[in-house]
């Protein structure tokens, strides 16, 4: 029954899109929280925007070519060229979504700045798609032998649930810390938080959950089927995603306190907005951490 579902070309294409989006957010997130990247978009002129797109496209062609070679696939050039175009489009779309999420794609900025920001931010996001194809190529359905032994061996070690939960919680905490540590002391966090209203913060929470779910469960970075097969407790994808987000938020709050961006006496609104803003990259880092364990 699973086989029949997987065969549908639309499902395969959606999975492919999820894989690409996951790669874009995984690699692009640190650049989204670097204001100089989109700041440059405000002043960049149209000729330079086109040059940036062209250079990125060339880089993507090279990466996609290398990815095909690495995976032992022989792909005709026409397919490499269209793959690169799709990676660029996905990266630009993901970059635009990211900018909208942190509130820097408002109509007040003017069309020039909006397009400039999307192009400048789209570059790292597009390269993220390419890198995901190169480093974390899509695992085929079934995922036999591709996932590092431990994951596939999960079923045989059925009594090991507690160990696995601990491993994933630890992976989440570690990944979230690695990403949040580099972003917590930056000016971007208060800057972004200041611009976001309550509704926007809720959207950010939802986006953090969706993106980390995409990276861990829908991306095929590791054999997704093996992950889903566990089932139950922390293993259920939705539960795991929610719990991992909680862990990421706690780590984010810890970092903010450590770097004195927040004092215990700060208002609840301030705490909530800073933690949710840093929670997005932290949850992406946490998702990456879970992929690694």
């Amino acid at each position: 029954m699973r086989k029949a579902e997987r065969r549908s070309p639309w499902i395969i294409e959606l999975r492919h899109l999820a894989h690409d989006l996951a790669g874009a957010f995984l690699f692009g997130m640190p650049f989204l929280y670097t204001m100089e990247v989109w700041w440059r978009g405000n002043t960049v002129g149209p000729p330079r925007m086109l040059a940036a797109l062209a250079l990125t496209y060339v880089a993507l062609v090279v990466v996609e070519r290398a990815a095909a070679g690495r995976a032992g696939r022989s792909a005709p050039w026409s397919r490499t060229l269209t793959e690169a175009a799709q990676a660029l489009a996905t990266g630009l779309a993901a970059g635009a979504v990211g900018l909208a999420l942190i509130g820097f794609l408002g109509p007040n900025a003017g069309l020039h700045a909006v397009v400039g920001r999307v192009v400048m931010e789209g570059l790292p996001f597009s390269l993220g798609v390419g890198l995901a194809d190169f480093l974390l190529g899509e695992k085929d359905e079934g995922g036999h032998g591709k996932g590092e032994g431990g994951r596939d061996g999960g079923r045989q070690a059925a009594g090991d649930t507690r160990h696995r939960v601990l491993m994933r919680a630890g992976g989440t905490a570690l990944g979230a810390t690695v990403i949040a540590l580099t972003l917590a002391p930056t000016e971007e966090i208060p800057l972004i938080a200041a611009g976001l209203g309550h509704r926007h913060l809720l959207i950010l929470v939802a986006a953090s959950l969706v993106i980390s779910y995409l990276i861990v469960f829908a991306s095929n970075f590791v054999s997704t089927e093996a992950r889903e097969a566990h089932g139950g407790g922390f293993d259920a994808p939705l539960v795991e995603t929610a719990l991992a987000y909680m862990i990421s938020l706690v780590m984010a709050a810890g970092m903010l306190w450590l770097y004195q961006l927040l004092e215990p006496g700060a208002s609840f609104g301030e705490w909530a907005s800073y933690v949710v803003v840093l929670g997005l990259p932290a949850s992406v880092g946490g998702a990456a951490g879970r992929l690694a364990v």
Partner: protein
Amino acid sequence: MSRKKQGESGSSPRTPAEWVALALALLLLACVVGVILWLWAKEPAGPPRFEVERAAVRVEAGLFLLPVAVRNVGGEAAGQVRVEGWLAAGAREERPATTIEFLPVGAREEAVLIFRADPSGASVEVVSYQRP
């Protein structure tokens, strides 16, 4: 090196789903490139220029709040755009001012100038900016 075999993964014919995905991607790229070309052709050249709009005055706690919006209609972005109001009310002169951090081409920012007297007759203008 050698010729690729038909039917190998990667060289098999595209499915309708793949065609749709490719078409959407190309459409999106065409839109982005199209907008950039349009900006290139249509955008005003030259240094930043500013348009100042004034909204209705609000009175709060005996003070007059004048909301103003500044739009950059020139061809370059401007930083530290200083907006100054000027009002001569009897013997007293008022010069409330605010600075807009950054105003890209075509961008519009809102600010409020606070006067002690009714600013209906006040003038509001941009008095300085920095080139970023």
